[in-house]
């Protein structure tokens, strides 16, 4: 009985959460477009969150606009442009390719290529030059390997 209030409270929060984003679409395609757009568009208020993940008042406003425009039959491109005109490229998590965003788009590829190049150069490098063993040393090595670990017969006497 003591927990009834808490349980009811939890139920209420769940319904409230769900109520935020219940929208009627004319087709499942429109709904998918809406989901994709609010996923891709960024909230200018709570930066680093997309519209879908934001509860800010501004994010709700922008979601309303996206919804209204989808219902009005606008294309994804038109809706994106509508927001970019107002909020700049910042609004999108997929900014267009231009001089100021070249590094953003190609930076990772550039890094990959340069690391690949360095690794390739390293693989071409000749192995370190070592002096080959002479016959005595070779024989000694052989003995060590076969288990009879005695100094080579013709080596210098130990001090």
């Amino acid at each position: 009985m003591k927990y009834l209030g808490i349980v009811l409270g939890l139920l209420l929060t769940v319904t409230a959460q769900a109520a935020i984003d219940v929208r009627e679409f004319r087709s499942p395609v429109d709904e998918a477009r809406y989901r994709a757009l609010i996923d891709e568009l960024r909230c200018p208020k709570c930066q680093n969150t997309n519209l879908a993940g934001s509860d800010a008042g501004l994010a709700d406003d922008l979601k309303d606009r996206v919804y209204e425009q989808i219902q009005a039959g606008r294309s994804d491109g038109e809706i994106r442009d509508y927001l970019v005109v107002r909020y700049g490229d910042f609004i999108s998590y997929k900014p267009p390719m231009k001089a100021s965003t070249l590094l953003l788009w190609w930076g990772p590829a550039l890094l990959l290529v340069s690391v690949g190049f360095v690794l390739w150069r390293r693989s071409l490098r000749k192995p370190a030059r070592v002096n080959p063993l002479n016959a005595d040393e070779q024989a000694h090595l052989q003995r060590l390997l076969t288990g009879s670990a005695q100094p080579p017969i013709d080596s210098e006497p130990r001090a």
Partner: protein
Amino acid sequence: MKPSLRKGFIFGLPLVLFLALAVLLASRNGEDPSYLPSARLQQPVPAFSLSSLEDPERMLDPSIFQGQVSLLNVWATWCVSCLVEHPVLLNMAADGVRIIGVNYKDDRQAAQAYLRERGNPFAETVFDERGDLGLDLGVYGAPETYLIDAQGRIRYRAVGVLDAKAWLQELKPRYDAVRAESAGAK
């Protein structure tokens, strides 16, 4: 690669990277990383036809920005920071700065009472109940203050509380420059 060159590379590269990072961080120091410049810089104030806050019968449009340099201040009674900057706006208005208010997503009665109580620094106040003008301007956090030149174009946007320091250091130099420019054009 020659050994000496190689050594220079190994020791020099971290140093170069460090210096580059130090310069980058120093240049960004003190800046607000969440600040967004207006996407409409150098463009006219977006078209609107909205009623005056004081007089619902009187419609206002962007022609109120023609002919003189103005500031456009986006405010609301629900915006706590707007309370803070209100005295600053009053002082600026007393010094002869023309400020146009945009009452953003607010209640008309509440906003009228707010101005009656605290004084009205605005030459005109546009009542933007639905937030359409705010959205067209790209408002993302009230209060915001836009510098509008005599041709009605947006020249600068300041986001956040316009305190005396922000006015004197951030906005006033730009305001004076735009005024000088339009005085020179005449």
